[in-house]
């Protein structure tokens, strides 16, 4: 197996990334011809937030998850169920969903993370399916496959609605999420994750509690997923079990890998690509799926390490 070097973020490059991301979030609305673009862009930021969480788990800690959408679903349904059954304010349910997801990840992660590679993949897949199954089958509580309404949020009497508002909320959330993921990458905990990613044996012999650190990464990823799911639910005013489904999980994995497993901004680029492609390919009508499949294959064949590290390598070669 060929190893790609870890995408490092020394101090200045880290801030450069954040600055560029902030600049993009801050300026592209000037070019939006209609409110729809706010919606799509907000969707990109929210999806990217979930993908960044998965990057922490898969890219930094090297642990596969085919059940990431399960946590997105937990976060999303918290927004619907909290107000309905606990009478909570919907905004309060955003942190609540994150806490529930973290707790679930903590409990589930302990046994699951003892597995490795494909076995871990199938275990996380099973977890995701369990979440979906509960959401689908408990019709009386969750509304079943047809989904459930999420109340609109109010902040000091101001109703949070409209594509533009959510664009800014999602954009800021993503910025904070990327900032945290970059912080982690360049920190003692992040180095421990990178270490166990490369060699668990060596990591253990330098004193890294591998099981505990994997669990931390799993919980962090779950919180990212749940917050993204909560925002998504708030944006849509509605949730269905699709949000937690297997296909959604596969999509998150594809985003992270296509953008570049080793790179935090890669997850953002991957998410942008997979959210925007279906929107740009609509003119192809029935050929859309086939073209999407071909594009995914081409990206992976020509930029094996992912878009961001792959282009970085190309630039480096040009420069040299």
């Amino acid at each position, binding site marked *: 197996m060929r190893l790609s070097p870890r995408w490092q973020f020394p101090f200045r490059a880290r801030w450069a990334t954040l600055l560029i991301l902030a600049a993009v979030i801050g300026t592209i609305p000037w070019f939006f011809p209609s409110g729809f673009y706010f919606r799509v862009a907000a969707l990109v930021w929210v999806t990217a937030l979930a993908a960044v969480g998965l990057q922490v788990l898969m890219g930094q800690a090297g642990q596969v998850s085919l059940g990431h959408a399960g946590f997105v679903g937990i976060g999303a349904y918290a927004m619907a169920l909290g107000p309905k059954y606990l009478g909570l304010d919907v905004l309060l349910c955003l942190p609540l969903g994150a806490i529930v997801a973290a707790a679930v990840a903590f409990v589930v992660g302990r046994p699951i993370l003892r597995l490795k590679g494909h076995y871990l993949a199938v275990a996380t897949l099973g977890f995701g399916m369990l979440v979906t199954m509960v959401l689908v089958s408990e019709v*009386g509580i969750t509304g079943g496959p047809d989904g459930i309404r999420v109340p609109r949020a109010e902040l000091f009497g101001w109703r949070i609605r409209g594509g533009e508002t959510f664009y800014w909320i999602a954009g800021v959330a993503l910025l904070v999420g990327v900032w945290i993921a970059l912080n982690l990458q360049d920190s003692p905990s992040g180095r421990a994750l990178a270490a166990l990613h490369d060699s668990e044996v060596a990591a253990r012999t330098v004193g890294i509690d591998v099981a505990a650190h994997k669990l931390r990464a799993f919980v962090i990823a779950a919180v990212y997923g749940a917050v993204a799911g909560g925002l998504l639910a708030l944006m849509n005013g509605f949730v269905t079990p699709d949000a937690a489904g297997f296909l959604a999980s596969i999509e998150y994995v594809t985003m992270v890998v296509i953008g570049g497993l080793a790179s935090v901004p890669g997850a953002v680029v991957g998410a942008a690509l997979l959210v925007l492609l279906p929107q740009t390919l609509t003119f192809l009508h029935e050929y859309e799926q086939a073209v999407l499949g071909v594009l995914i294959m081409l990206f992976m064949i020509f930029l094996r390490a992912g878009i961001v590290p792959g282009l970085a390598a190309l630039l480096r070669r040009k420069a040299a």
Partner: protein
Amino acid sequence: MGLGRMLRRGALTLGALAAFGFAFSALRATPALAQQGQPIRIGAVLSVTGPASFLGDPEDKTLRLYVNRINQAGGINGRPIQLIVYDDGGDANRARTFATRLVEDDRVVAMVGGTTTGTTMAMRPVFEDARIPFISLAGGIEIIDPVSPFTFKTPHTDRMACEKIFADIRARGLSRVALISGTDGFGQSMRAQCQRVAQAAGITIVADEQYGPRDSDMTPQLTRIRNTQGVEAVVNPGFGQGPAIVTRGYAQLGIRLPLYQSHGVASAQFIELATAAAAEGVRLPAAALLVAEQLPQNDPQRQVLIDYKTAFEREFNQPVSTFGGHAYDGLMILADAIRRANSTDGTRLRDAIRATRGFVGTGGVVNMSATDHMGLDLSAFRMVEIRGGRFVLIGN
């Protein structure tokens, strides 16, 4: 750690995000034109692919076919229709995005679509906020009950299907029913409605089994039902290939109790998939489309149904389903309303749709009002039985 390296990294990230920006500008491809005699833009978000493609595909085909026909006949009030169809793949989140696109970017005057109850409910707030009429093609009763000002639907509700089936079971002097439902939206929604109306209809539900929409064998569930004491009839809420496999399994196990399917299988294709032998004697409530030729000559729906059926089958060389019929009804109700309102203003169009009276569609005769955004009653449902590989209308 040189400055050069940092700049390279920066340039790279910038490049990636610029590509992202380009993708955005590519979205602007649809120009917003506003000229004399301009086309009337009608949107549709359908589940053409994905788990509900069984419903979405004929809806898509029907809309395209009839928009062409209307345009060839000179359009509505001299203006052609421009149909914009997006495929949500059955995903509510994607449907919501496309709905926003129709409203904000394509500036449609109305929407006919929403294949499943889930996608419909996810899209409804978009059209309500924009005050644009939205005619859904999904069955769930919550779409129109309670009524939202701009949301309509053409299919019968699943509650009506349950009531129709239960009435037929009672008419046979039976009352103890086993449910076997798909875990898809259609199956779960109808299962819940059946449970809700059972008591009022004098029905006791004694078994409640489920199967995944993609499952390939339902004999374990059916074995369980067979072994449940006192079951007198079996009802199968579901759509797609699931009910066909249930019907086959039913025959395989030699269960002799009456089997009821739902309106979710109302297509000749169901008989083909379930095989005529296994489907013999199966009853289901369905729109009259399935038995068009058997309707009496004086039935108001007869001509409409035969015309639609002939047109669809000639064009696509596959049997009609009532789902395509829902799309036909939605499009025609809308066209009629635009004609009457002579306007594409959302509120006036909504009022015109609400004023629909005596519209003869494939689903029945539609009489809308401010409190009824569907306009169908139980008489629009016909009870049919499969005999000798054909749907046969049985006396109501």
